[in-house]
């Protein structure tokens, strides 16, 4: 304190940490350079140079949309909404028990049950809806049912993961107070935990429904029903004005579903 040459030096990071951070940046730059080389190797630059003209050409063929085609789109659109809604319902119904089995504070067994529940969640999440639909079309045949089940299976993981995280974040003191009254296990769930996770549950479900509307529009590409069937047919026959019309309808639906989902979540939280 009395000599100025022994003023302690404060450093935010140790030398080792600083070196490590620089090494991290170096690695990132190297990766970028490598990726760029990889990309340019397989690119045919003549096509890229031609791109603006091609885009303009396609655009002129797509425009204007064939407005009268909408008459044939109402039914597939209705199917698409049904796939999304029923699929979400199916997913949610299965996700609820999975979430309670996966949450570390409600699982009956951390050693046996919890890993199984977590595996179900990961398995469901790791496979895209389109892939689920592809598998299901070959198992139960083309049509709406394949689409509904595909959306349902994909939703289980999403809903269960977010829900079990919400269950784990519940206030322990409220649960303790309900336990102290002499409540049974089911009563503790009903009074201590469910009221705490209900807003999150509604929010997650509506959010997933919103995502599922978008996902169900493409399931028809693999024959799982909905507006995607028309999209594929139009693409195959190069009926570009119809494709544009389908895009317009999908855009409108997604905008409306997002609005609904935002309103519902706002009302709950």
């Amino acid at each position, binding site marked *: 304190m009395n000599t100025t040459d022994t003023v302690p030096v404060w450093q935010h990071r140790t030398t080792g940490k600083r070196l490590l951070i620089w090494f991290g940046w170096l690695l990132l730059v190297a990766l970028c350079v490598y990726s760029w080389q990889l990309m340019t190797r397989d690119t045919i630059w003549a096509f890229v140079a031609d791109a603006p003209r091609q885009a303009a050409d396609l655009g002129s063929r797509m425009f204007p949309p064939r407005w009268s085609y909408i008459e044939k789109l109402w039914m597939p659109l209705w199917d698409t909404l049904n796939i999304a809604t029923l699929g979400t319902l199916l997913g949610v119904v299965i996700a609820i028990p999975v979430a309670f089995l996966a949450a570390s504070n409600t699982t009956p067994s951390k050693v046996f049950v919890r890993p199984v529940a977590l595996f179900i969640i990961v398995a469901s999440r790791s496979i895209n809806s389109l892939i689920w639909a592809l598998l299901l079309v070959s198992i139960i045949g083309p049509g709406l049912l394949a689409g509904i089940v595909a959306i349902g299976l994909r939703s289980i993981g999403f809903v269960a993961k977010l829900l079990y995280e919400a269950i784990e974040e519940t*206030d322990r*003191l*409220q649960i*303790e*107070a*309900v*336990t*102290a*009254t*002499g*409540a*049974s296990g*089911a*009563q503790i769930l*009903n*009074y*201590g935990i469910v*009221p*705490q996770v*209900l*807003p999150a549950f509604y929010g997650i479900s509506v959010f997933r429904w919103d995502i599922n509307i978008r996902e169900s529009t493409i399931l028809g590409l693999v024959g799982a029903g909905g507006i995607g069937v028309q999209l594929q047919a139009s693409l195959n026959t190069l009926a570009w004005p119809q494709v544009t019309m389908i895009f317009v309808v999908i855009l409108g639906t997604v905008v409306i579903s997002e609005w609904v989902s935002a309103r519902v979540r706002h009302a709950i939280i």
Partner: protein
Amino acid sequence: MSGPAFRSTHTLLEVSQLSKTYAAGDKALDDVSFSIPAGQVVGLIGPSGAGKSTLIRCINRLVEPTSGTISLSGTNITGMSTSELRSVRRRIGMIFQEYALVERLSVMENVLSGRLGYVSFWRSFTRHYPKADVQKAFALLDRVGLIDHASKRADALSGGQRQRVGIARALEQDPELLLIDEPTASLDPKTSRQIMRLLLEICNEQHLPAIINIHDVVLARQFTERLIGLQAGRIVFDGSPAELTESVLTRIYGEEDWTTLDHETEAA
């Protein structure tokens, strides 16, 4: 502060040689023994981390004791299986520092949840409680001055009001004993005194024994007839508020100038 003359002096709660060692190896309670006669209100004082909270949580087995026995009116609580535990927990009402109400349920549902140990799951799930339970809940809400708030959600109330709901919930259980964990630590001084007064009035009316875990020595002295001092998991004092001298306070809390505290007590 003296309660009414004891109508009976039989031992209601008997704690003997109770110890609790947490998994991490911390010894929270070390050979704690005491007993409480029917109708007595006991203040449990001691520094933070002395084991006060662990001690009252051992009594309804929210915390599992490592060794020792606890018996309530002759029933051994420590030897009970988890399924038998339900029938003893419902006889012990608990009031919490942070109120611990289920925030998103109504005041009425919170009070009625005091009956969970008595009713079937289906009744509690459909909120279809026996008429007598609902009447009792209304009477208790009236007693704590919240009759107009029955349908409000718990998170719409102020701190003092929430603690009153917590008191009503505990009394809805028809308890033989109240465990009260820092009832005033989240409240302002005036509300604290109102809540303590309400608790004491109710205990006296119903001849209900209580253990009040409290860190405010002034409040403890003012409102309880007996004080137990815990220090590092051991009982270092057990006596009346008058016996709580400066040297005793030093034994419980460590060296400090306690004279200002005495003036405060005289003023109050």
